[in-house]
């Protein structure tokens, strides 16, 4: 059962990385869009596409953190005692992003509007970078705040979120009839995919030098199927986007990013912190595990229909404003 709890945690982290990643990625493209007329148009689309989802992704984050402190209290204490600075920076991004996303809808003057855009964009970089950096410090096993691993994980996360963001924005551009932006985000998705492959390879090199055991487990052990999956899915998704075959590209993008998270987690299992803390050492007493699983099952039973309803209404256009 301890493994099941760890798996629930992994699902939470993966959901945040993929679903949250799409939103953060959109924020990164917002930052890079510039002030040209086309950039403004792109920013408008980003705003439009993101409005109803962003705050929901915090749910995955809160869920993951609750599973950590309830299910693995020792992990929580160890990680936060060492990495508080990283989490404080990630949090800062989170607050600023939320505040300035709202603010740019209120800002009247062009100048304040530009400042709001800038803060929103920069904070969209901060949060995914630092959350992933903390995973890098954990994967290294030494929990150092500044190390090749933290930087490598942070950069991979930026490339991955930029890729996810662009991939979904291609679909949004089609959906909202902004045809001239389809090509714009197609190109960006491909560039981000190439960047992701490059940074991903560099990150593997960092892992090989900092934590050879983890490297081996990723490419020859439990992480292998997922490492392979991400290596195949990323270029395939990018190729489909480039070709303009828009049927499956979003699913493949999520698959690529999700597999990456899985590859890391499976490679370091049964360790929560390689060489220091295993799942069995950190796990809470059995009754707590049972309650966590019950909550998870209820969550799935309640949330899946609820999300289904949301998607159903959204697809039917029931949540759109009538054409003006």
């Amino acid at each position, binding site marked *: 059962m301890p493994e099941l709890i760890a798996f629930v945690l992994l699902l939470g982290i993966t959901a945040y990385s993929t679903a949250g990643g799409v939103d953060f990625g959109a924020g990164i493209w917002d930052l890079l869009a510039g002030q040209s007329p086309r950039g403004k148009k792109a920013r*408008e689309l980003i705003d*439009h596409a993101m*409005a*109803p989802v962003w*705050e*929901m992704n915090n*749910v995955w*984050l*809160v*869920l993951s*953190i*609750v599973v950590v*402190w*309830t*299910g*693995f*209290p*020792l992990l*929580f*204490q*160890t*990680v*936060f*005692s060492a990495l*508080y*600075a990283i*989490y*404080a920076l990630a*949090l*800062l991004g*989170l*607050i600023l992003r*939320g*505040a300035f996303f*709202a603010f740019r*809808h*209120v800002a009247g003057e062009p100048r304040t509007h530009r400042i709001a855009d800038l803060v929103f964009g920069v904070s969209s970089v901060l949060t995914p970078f630092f959350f992933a950096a903390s995973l890098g410090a954990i994967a290294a096993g030494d929990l150092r705040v500044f190390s090749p691993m933290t930087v490598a994980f942070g950069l991979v996360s930026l490339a991955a979120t930029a890729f996810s963001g662009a991939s979904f924005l291609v679909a949004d551009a089609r959906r*909202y009839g*902004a045809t001239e932006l389809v090509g714009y985000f197609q190109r960006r998705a491909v560039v981000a995919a190439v960047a992701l492959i490059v940074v991903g390879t560099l990150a593997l090199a960092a892992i090989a030098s900092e934590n050879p055991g983890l490297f081996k487990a990723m490419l020859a052990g439990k992480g292998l199927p997922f490492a392979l999956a991400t290596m195949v899915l990323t270029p395939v998704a990018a190729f489909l986007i480039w070709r303009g075959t828009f049927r499956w590209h979003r699913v493949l993008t999520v698959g690529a990013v999700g597999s990456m998270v899985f590859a890391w987690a499976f490679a370091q299992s049964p360790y929560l912190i390689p060489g220091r803390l295993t799942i069995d050492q950190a796990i*809470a*007493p059995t*009754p*707590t595990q*049972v*309650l*966590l699983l019950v*909550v998870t099952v*209820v*969550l799935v039973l*309640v*949330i899946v229909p*609820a*999300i289904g309803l*949301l998607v159903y*209404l959204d697809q039917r256009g*029931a*949540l*759109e*404003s009538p054409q*003006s």
Partner: protein
Amino acid sequence: MIDAVEPALLPSRIQMAFTLATHVLLVPMGVAMPFLTLLMEGIGLYRKDPVALKIARRWSVVMAVQFAVGAVTGTILSFEFGILWPRMLGRFGAAFGLGFAIEGLAFFLEAIFIGVYLYGWNRLPARVHFLLGLVLPPAGVLGAASVLSANAWMNTPGGYSLQDGRVTNVDVMSALFPRALGYEFWHFLLALYLTAGFVVASVYAVAWLRGRRDHYQRLAFAVPFTVAAVLTPAQLVIGDLSARALVEDQPAKFAAMEVTWQTRDHNPEVIGGVIDDSGNVHLGISIPALDSILVGYTPNQVVRGLSTFAADSRPNTFEVNLTHLAFDVMVGLGIVGAALSAWYLWVVWRRRRLPEQRWFYRLAALAGAGSYLTVELGWITTEVGRQPWIVYNVMRVSDAVTTAPAAFIWSMLTVLVVTYALIAFFFVTLLLRLSARWRREDLGEPGAPEVGVPYGPRPRTLEG
């Protein structure tokens, strides 16, 4: 007493107090506003009153924006457990964390259904929209109950066994339902609902004072104010029961609330006043034997004093005074609120109309801010009164605090204060802007209330 503590203790306490004090202001509307909105929508549907539906729709916009702000401040709180108090969670997470696991569930439901509710106006069939909204009030209550379960656990911990500083077994039921939950839950739930009622009504009390006297204003005032007026007298009873329960559950907190120094019978009730380090109370009005009578219904009731606790196991002088004054002002404001409620209920019941005195609306306009203040004071009473414990009689705040350098926590606090001030500014600006626009709409300008709101529905295509 102050030697060998972590240097980050002071900034950590201030930071936690600051972020919690902010978050607690968002909770009443977050938990109870869906109920008021649905009540208004229900009235609109039942009476086929388009004005009531318009009010409900506008309220739902405010509800959604404020939920988004609360989601951010709440996420920050969950990280602060790790950044500021890693040793408490490390030791007790398996027992203390249970409530939050359930809170996550409630939060999820609220996030989804607030979205559906806000976007669904006029796009879903009216009855379906209303029924989907009905998920929100119970989800809010569940969320509040689970967070209170965690707080009650800190006040009356239980349901776990410790071995070598680690929790080795957990009794889920007693950890989830600590003794203090019984009174904390009802006391806080009523506080949330009546605060939301007073706050919403206060907006329309101001409108009355400015001369607006139409059906819209009357309805938007009367519905939330009636809810608050019915609950406020009940809150006096629940509050009294809560305080009385502390006599046994947390005697040091109770002694601090009543500034009782010596254990004695015929203990006076001291209203206001401050205590000094040697236990003398200055200023304040002392009513002989009243505290004993309130506790045990007889002047002979013995009440335990602060001097019977070791100095490092009870709140210090400053904390005692803070607890005492917060408690007194909270009770005082509660009584004023109950009197205002009685005035309202009397007029409505006897005259079958709303009050017409200017003074009533002046007080009603203040009741919103007053009940926010009361919530803060109640929270100060329970949290400061528990000092120096983070887990009552089990773990001291100073044993839970982070080993991070104090300078780091001070900097983080500074950044948080600045960003929270910005958020507050944006939030208020947005509300004022919405209010101004809605007023324009009432004077004949067309448009849907949600348009231009950050979390509102999107048009089907991009403009321009």
